[in-house]
């Protein structure tokens, strides 16, 4: 009983101004901060160029099929996630509710990350950059102790930005500067999503294209830096032995899955504003390939800059040793250069071993500096900012870098907010006469107020928790149910006909095989492996504690039980929606079956085609 969908002009649903807006929105949603700060890290630790093999296999068998599924679903049913899944089957409505919940949780913490980016952005206009120098201590005889023992960059991030507490149980106070930046960020999100896709469609032209411009500029600049080639060689040299480790395959699968922003409901919402006769197959392949290519493209400047930083650190290490030796033996300046350092050190080791031992020279190894791999916020706010200080014209580079990160994150926020906004609009939370601006305003205001928790001293620990638990396991579960729901409950034959009707050509065998068997199987394996791995290591976190003996190393602490309970809640809540809704409908049906007189007279419904 599939009703023919209405043509766009009749149902009053907003639509994209042109196809480009839709494609850019999907690409912007998929391409986010993870493409810049997670993919290069994974490439580095999993054998460089060899990582591309499991990555592209995962893209082929997991990424593209699931993406096509979601886009086709949204485009055919022309509803947001909750409405779409209710249409497929009310028993599967829980998937929509779960997706909606995940979108809410992710919107909360994702915008706080953008708050940090904005804070760094507005601090980039100073000369010298505030994270390049340590502040002085009270009696001005030396530098602030915490800053001196770690580095100026670390100090600015942990103290001046986060004002982090040494333990997650200590909440600390609200940091007023972060609250200001948070308000500004939610203001920008409200500004861009105020009328749904009408406004995001215009904003996406800038936020989706601008990062590519900046990445190109950084690429050109990065390649001219000394040490860039070392970084690139290190990144791309394939080490095929790593492929034997199943962890590599798991990381590739999860990276593809999370990178494409599947199961958030945002993609379904975007596709639902399309005209139905649109080639969703081509769109899916395009978006997935552009996303992966962007990851690759972004890793080149990232690794040029990391190579440059490692080389500079190596040279600094050598220079410090050289100065120590020159001072100790009163040799003339510039007698020992970096090139003949090794021959000199051998000479001294043989002739004056005790003196050399007394100097406590650090061993300088370029490989060691290159091996220091960081991902996530550490890469952007500590490693990259340090590299930027070393570049000439650091203010300009810092400003460009942080605007780029902001646009990347903002375009992903559009997708998250659409995943929250569209279902609420369809559920008609606010009366139809009220303007859309009111709903988006309410959503942004509520999210801003809840996100104030993340501006506490312990805020960044909480963001790590949300990132690890709310945005990982539930998505895998929901995506699994999505595939099973469409293929086995809605029935693949029916879905193939729908897609054929939309694209105008028969469904390829590739889609049939991946949707029916390969993708669900892969998702199941990935989910089980992922959960097993998470269970194996105790839920711990690394705390920044200046009073720790090993400072500036971070202190490994275990989450207290109440925090662990919250972690479980975050992971379980969206997943549990699925069986809960099934149960709810079963119970409702049983109640109805018991008393046929209670059947509501909705058979001759005049609300128009409701399905």
């Amino acid at each position, binding site marked *: 009983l599939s009703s023919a969908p209405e043509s766009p002009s009749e149902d009053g649903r907003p639509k994209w101004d042109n196809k480009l807006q839709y494609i850019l929105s999907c690409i912007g949603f998929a391409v986010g901060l993870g493409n810049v700060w997670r993919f290069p890290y994974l490439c580095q630790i999993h054998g460089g160029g060899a990582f591309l093999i499991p990555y592209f296999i995962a893209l082929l068998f997991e990424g593209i099929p699931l993406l096509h599924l979601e886009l086709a679903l949204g485009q055919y049913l022309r509803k947001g996630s909750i409405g779409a899944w209710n249409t497929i089957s009310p028993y599967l409505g829980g998937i929509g509710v779960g997706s909606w919940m995940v979108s809410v949780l992710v919107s909360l913490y994702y915008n706080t990350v953008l708050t940090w980016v904005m804070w760094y952005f507005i601090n980039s206009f100073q000369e010298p950059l505030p994270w390049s120098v340590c*502040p002085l201590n009270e009696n001005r005889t030396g530098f602030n102790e915490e800053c001196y023992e770690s580095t100026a960059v670390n100090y600015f991030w942990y103290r001046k930005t986060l004002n982090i507490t040494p333990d997650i149980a200590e909440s600390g106070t609200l940091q007023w500067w972060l609250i200001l930046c948070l308000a500004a960020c939610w203001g920008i999100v409200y500004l861009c999503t105020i009328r749904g896709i009408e406004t995001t469609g215009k904003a996406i032209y800038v936020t989706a294209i601008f990062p590519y411009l900046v990445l190109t500029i950084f690429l050109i600049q990065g390649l001219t830096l000394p040490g860039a080639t070392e970084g690139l060689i290190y990144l791309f040299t394939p080490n095929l032995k790593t492929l034997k480790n199943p962890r590599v395959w798991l990381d590739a699968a999860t990276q593809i899955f999370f990178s494409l922003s599947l199961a958030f409901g945002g993609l379904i919402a975007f596709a639902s504003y399309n005209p139905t006769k649109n080639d969703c197959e081509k769109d899916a392949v395009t978006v997935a390939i552009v996303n992966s290519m962007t990851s690759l493209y972004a890793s080149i400047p990232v690794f040029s800059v990391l190579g440059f930083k490692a080389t500079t650190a190596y040279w600094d290490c050598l220079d410090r040793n050289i100065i120590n030796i020159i001072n100790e033996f009163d040799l003339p300046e510039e007698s020992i250069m970096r090139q003949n350092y090794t021959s000199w050190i051998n000479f001294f080791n043989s002739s004056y071993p005790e003196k050399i031992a007394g100097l406590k020279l650090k061993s300088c190894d370029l490989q060691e500096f290159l091996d220091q791999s960081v991902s996530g916020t550490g890469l952007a706010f500590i490693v990259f900012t340090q590299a930027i200080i070393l570049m000439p014209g650091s203010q300009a580079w810092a400003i460009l870098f942080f605007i780029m990160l902001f646009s990347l994150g903002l375009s992903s926020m559009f997708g998250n907010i659409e995943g929250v906004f569209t279902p609420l609009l369809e559920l008609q939370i606010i009366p139809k006469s009220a303007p859309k601006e009111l709903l988006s305003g309410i959503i942004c205001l509520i999210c801003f107020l809840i996100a104030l928790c993340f501006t506490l001293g312990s805020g960044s620990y909480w963001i790590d928790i949300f990132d690890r638990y709310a945005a990982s396991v539930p998505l895998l579960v929901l995506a699994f149910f999505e595939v099973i729901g469409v293929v086995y409950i809605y029935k693949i034959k029916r879905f193939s006909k729908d897609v054929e009707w939309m694209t105008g050509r028969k469904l390829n065998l590739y889609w049939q095989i991946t949707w029916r068997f390969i993708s669900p199987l892969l998702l199941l394996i990935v989910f089980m492996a992922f959960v097993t791995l998470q269970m194996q290591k105790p839920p711990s976190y690394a705390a920044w504690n200046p009073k720790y003996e090993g400072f500036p190393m971070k202190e490994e602490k275990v989450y207290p039980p109440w925090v662990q309970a919250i972690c479980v809640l975050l992971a379980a809540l969206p997943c549990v929606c699925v069986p809960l809704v099934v149960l709810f409908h079963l119970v409702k049906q049983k109640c109805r079956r018991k008393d046929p007189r209670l059947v509501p007279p909705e058979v001759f419904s005049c609300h128009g085609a409701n399905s």
Partner: protein
Amino acid sequence: MLRALLFTLSVVAIAHAELCKPDAQNAFKVRISIKTALGDNAYAWDANEEYLFKAMVAFAMRRYSSKSTTQISNVLLCNVTDRVSFWFVVTDSSKNVTTVPGSVVEAAIRMNRNRINNAFLLSDKTLQFLKITSTLSPPVEPSTPVWLIVFGVVLCLIVAGIVFLIVSGIQKHKKKNKESTEGENLEEKVEVTLENGIPCEALDLKAGHINGVFAADDERFTSL
């Protein structure tokens, strides 16, 4: 006569050697890095530069304490290496064969550090007096932090944008309302929802009979 002169000279030389040697009491080590500071414009460290150094130390001593009568000959340099580094002491001409206390010398150098650095075109880092720490200058802090100004600009832009969009939305809404009321006055309400050829209003749902067989809700949903 000659022998007496030679004798005095040798005594003075030995006395100087006693006073100025590495790790002597009240002696300071100086380390100079000219090539690091000046690169290609580096000058060579020779006897003239040493003379200037003695003069600067004597100047510093005189400036620090107005009672001081330090002469250039009172400043003794020794153990000059290729690095360039050397030790120096300041002798007290009033009391024979003694050195000025280290604390006095340190205070004098500290007070005039800037003048001494500039005489040699060097800085605190390249003209090092080991054991004498320098006071670090605080970073320049503008009255309003720069970031607050930038934030203000960003916030103004955001607020302006939001106000503009809301106002334009309200105007569009008003225009649409005016047009729709005009449209309603012109044409009759032709919109009647039909169901099986019967207008919905005609169907009195309360009076109709419901056939229990077809009343199950399941038919609207996809069969499992």
